[in-house]
Every structure is written in C-alpha cells, then in structure tokens.
C-alpha cells in the first residue's frame, strides 16, 4: 500500500488493540440495536401495508363484533372461525357504491379428528367471483383449481410438513395437493385453499363445524369515484348484522401497539448514541493527549492542520465503519432469528426485501460512523489547533 495518512491511521489503530476493540464494540452494539429495532418495526409496518394492499378489496364485511378477526386472520395468521349467512353477500351487492363482491369461508383443521395435518386455516373461496386469491393462483399455478384439489400457502407448505406429500385428508375428504402459492406477505401464506365446489362434500362429512350457507367474510370493491369509507358506512347502515373494515385501516391495531414499542426503541437508541459518542470522546481525548508530541513533530516538519485532522478522522472513520459493519451483521441476525420469539410477531409474515435491508444497513452504517466522528470531533479539532512549540517544549 502506498504510504499515506491512511497508513499512519491504520498503524495507530493497531497500536492499542484493546482500546480500539472497546470502541468498536460500543459502536457495534449501538448499530445492532438500531438495525434490529428498525428492521423489526419496518418489517411489521411494511408487512401490514403489503398485506392490506395485496388483498385487492377496498372494504371487508364481517359479522357484527368480528371486526378484529379480519386483521387476525388476514394479517396475523391467527386461526379464527366466524360465520354469517350467505344472503349477506347479495345484500352487500345491492348497496350504493359497491362494484364487485366475493366471499371466503374459513375452516379449521384438527389433527386426528378431521384431518391429517396440524391446526391451520382452510380458506374456501369462489373461483368465479374471486378477485383476491385468483391473482396469486394464476401467478403460481397457471390454472384454476379443480374439484378435489387444494393449493397450499407458501409458509404452510413447510410449517405443516407437507413437502413431497401428494394427498391430504381434510375434514374427512381426501384432497390432491395441487401446488404451492408464491409468497404473498399476508396471513394467507399459512393457509390452505380450496374451491367452494368442495364445500358440500366437506359439510356432508360433518367434520368442519360449518353449516350450509355459512360464509366468513365478504370482500368488496367499490365503484370508481366512490370513497371506501362512505361505502363502508353505507353497508353498515343497510345491514345491521355486519361490521366493515376499510383496507386503509387494516393492521392499525398492530401498528398502534408498535408505536409504543418504537418509542422504547427510539429512547434506547438515543441513550446508546449519547453513550457511544461520549465513549468516542473519552477514547480520542486519551489518544490525542498521548500523541500530542507526535502531532507537534508532524506540524514542525510541515503538516498542516488539515493533515492532522484527516489522519484522526480516518482513524475514527475506520473504527466507526468496522463497528457499524459488525453491528449491521449482529442486528440483521437478531432481527431474522429473534423476531419469532415475540408473541405479537410470530404470526405475522415478516420479510424485508434486499433493498429494504440495504437501506436499513446503510442507515446503521451512517449513524454508527457519524456518531463515532461526532464524539471524537472535539479532541480532533484540539489537535488540529495544537501549538507545536508548546507541545514539543512540554515533551
């Protein structure tokens, strides 16, 4: 490597390995908290948004009192059964501003009793009217489901141990597993889908706990020019047995819970930042005191203030960068491995795209390196302004 101020900075970093390690560790911890916290919060928010956006419906209609169930089934993958009469579908269709409607019925498997798979949600949908599942079905499968066929959500495929299993017993009826859906980022990733042509067979075996004519949820698309909120109010006004949820308000309960969590993260990050900056200040104050004679010599043989500044800034940037990269690794690892231990998150389909991960990593890198520089800046400026004669005389 060509000799430069960088060479001196690197040698000085190696000079006191323990002190360097302490500062690198502090920055790594700060950045890992930042990356972990940001990934955690960002992935929840983005999972909520992605899931509600991908539903394709503007308004959801559920039985009265089951408003929160919509979130729980569609976003959080919770197993819930709730039913209303199918006649609701026709009444919703008549409401002003409603363009299209479709429905889904949710069933729950019970291992050993009705089915040969652990408890999971089975979504029965109508392929003729559907505008929610069909889009994913076409992407992954390329054709419609036949009677006697089911298709498995992306995560359910692995979670339920259905790998390489061609057939499965559901509610006393044997089904062909026709394929696996691509990841949707919604609660449907953990579900099994069947066409409503099968519902009569299922009901006739009496193992599904559902009656003929029961449906769980109606999906509504509003006409162009109509506001989903107004249509939602129209539906609730016209049909007393139902509640409605607009797509834009889906996941609000979870997001509002996470606002409190994010405040805790924010305070932790601020405190950790102040602590790291203080540590950088302490370490670099000690460093500049030890090296004031060397800096004086460098100035006496021609170094400008900018040379001195650059040498120390390079040193602090390298320490900050190494700490930040380490912190990004730790934070990302924690966010991937530990998120599932949090009860609130374990049912949410969480995944960040490489771009989102890169952005969070970049934020962590800039914050870690920046805080290290801010902390060390005051002692470095002191060195830049060092009077070489006084420092040499002291030596």
């Amino acid at each position: 490597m060509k000799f430069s101020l960088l060479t001196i900075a690197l040698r000085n970093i190696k000079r006191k390995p323990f002190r360097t390690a302490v500062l690198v560790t502090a920055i790594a911890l700060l950045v890992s908290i930042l990356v972990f916290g940001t990934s955690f919060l960002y992935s929840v928010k983005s999972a909520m948004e992605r899931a509600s956006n991908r539903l394709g419906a503007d308004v959801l209609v559920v039985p009265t009192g089951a408003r929160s169930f919509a979130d729980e089934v569609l976003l959080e993958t919770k197993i819930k059964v709730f039913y209303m009469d199918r006649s609701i579908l026709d009444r919703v269709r008549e409401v002003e501003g409603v363009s299209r409607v479709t429905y889904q019925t949710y069933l729950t498997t019970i291992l050993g009793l009705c089915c040969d798979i652990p408890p999971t949600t089975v979504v029965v949908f109508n392929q003729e009217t559907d505008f929610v599942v069909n889009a994913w079905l076409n992407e992954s499968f390329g054709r419609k489901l036949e009677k006697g066929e089911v298709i498995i959500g992306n995560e359910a495929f692995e979670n339920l141990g259905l790998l390489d299993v061609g057939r499965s017993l559901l509610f006393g009826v044997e089904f062909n597993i026709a394929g696996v859906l691509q990841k949707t980022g919604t609660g449907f990733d953990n579900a099994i889908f069947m066409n409503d042509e099968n519902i009569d067979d299922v009901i006739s075996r009496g193992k599904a706990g559902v009656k003929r004519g029961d449906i769980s949820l109606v999906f509504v698309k509003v006409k162009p020019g109509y506001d989903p909120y107004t249509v939602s109010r129209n539906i609730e006004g016209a049909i007393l047995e139902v509640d409605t949820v607009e797509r834009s308000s889906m996941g609000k309960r979870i997001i509002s819970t996470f606002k409190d969590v994010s405040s805790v993260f924010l305070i932790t990050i601020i405190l950790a930042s102040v602590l790291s900056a203080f540590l950088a200040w302490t370490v670099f104050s000690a460093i500049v005191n030890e090296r004031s004679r060397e800096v004086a010599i460098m100035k006496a043989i021609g170094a400008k203030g900018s040379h001195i500044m650059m040498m120390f800034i390079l040193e602090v940037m390298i320490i900050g960068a190494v700490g930040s990269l380490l912190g990004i690794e730790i934070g990302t690892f924690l966010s991937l491995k530990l998120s599932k231990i949090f009860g609130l998150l374990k049912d949410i389909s969480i995944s960040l795209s490489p771009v989102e991960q890169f952005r969070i990593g970049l934020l962590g890198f800039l914050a870690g390196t920046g805080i290290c520089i801010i902390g060390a800046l005051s002692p470095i400026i002191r060195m830049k302004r060092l009077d070489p004669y006084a420092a040499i005389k002291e030596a």
Partner: protein
Amino acid sequence: MRHIEVNDASKIYKVGDLIIKAVDSVSFNIDKGEFVSIIGHSGSGKSTLLSIIGGILSVTSGNVYFNGRDIYNLDEHALSQYRAEKIGYIFQFASLLPVLTVRENLLLPTIFKAGTNGNVEQKIEKYLWMVGLQYKINAYPSQLSGGQQRRVAIARALMNDPEVILADEPTGDLDEITEKETMDLLKRINRDSGITFILVTHNLDLARNAGKWLKMDNGRLKEI
C-alpha cells in the same frame, strides 16, 4: 538579499504579572550555506530562537525574513508550506513516529509537501546510505539505538530538499563517539550539499564545528 534575516525579534510571555522575555530584540543575518551555532546556557532562549526561525513559534515583535520574505506575514497554509519545503528539523529528543518503520518515517515529510515527485525511494536509499543505516530500512524506531534514531531523523530532515536545517541539541543524549559521528555527518552534509545549518547547543566543543557562533544569554544576543 540575505538568506535569513532576524530583525529586532522578541518573544515575550506574560505569566500573571511577570513578563518573561524569552528572546529580547535579537537581530542577526545568516547567508546561504553557512554553518551557524547558537550557544548558551539552559533557558537562555536559544531553542526559542530556533523555533522562531523554524516557523513554529511566532514573534511578539520584530521580523524574520527568509529569502527576503517575512515568514510571520504568511498565512497558516503558507507557513506550513515553508516548514515543509524550506526547513528540515532535527529535534533534541527521539522524534521518529514509533508506529512507522525507518522507511515510512523518511516518507512522512514528503506527504506534507505539495508536488513531491516519484524519486522518493531513491532519496531514501541515498540518505540512509549517507547516515549508514541502509540495512535498517524496515526496522521500527524501538529496534534502533539512540544514535541510530538520531541519524534517521537527520535523513528525514533531508527528504524534502530543505534550504535550511535546524538542529536543536541533536547530540544531547548521545555518547561521545556517537556525538562526534553525528557532528561529522552534519558537517559533511553542509559541505557537500550547501544546505544552511543552524545548530543549537550548550556544548562549546560542538559549537566550534561551526563557521559562525551566536551566543544567547537571558534572551539577548551577546556576541557574534
């Protein structure tokens, strides 16, 4: 035009009510290529005077001209350039950076000089050969004796082709034999390269190596 002209230069410190005249109205001239000794007791102001000439300590009053230019009228940037390009400094203590090898310590002044050309490796070889330490090129200062470190510092002072070398008690902590070798080396460089030398010492025997003596006493220049 004189090479160096010190004109009524004073350096005065105030410590509470006490006024200390470290250098008191000193005037003298030095021509190019001269070997000048500044002698005097400890605290007489000789090192302060050397620092003033070296551009690391400003005067309270008076002027210091280098090739006709008042160095304390220069801005910070130009003064650093003066130190990098015109002056080679040899200190009275071990002044090599401990984290750098001999080669890197010699390269150090070159990164402060604008437009340093590509023949630095040849210069390193030449000056290390001149001080007899070519075989120590990759050694760290801790692996060198005091005399060897001083010789590396001399080689470092030559790296930017200075016009003046300021040596502040360069043999202060060396044994007699090493002291003589070092002085012989400085004289040889002065003779061969024509570089002006200003040597600060309290040792009269060493001062006799110079062509011109300046004696400092209580901040004043007593005799020439």
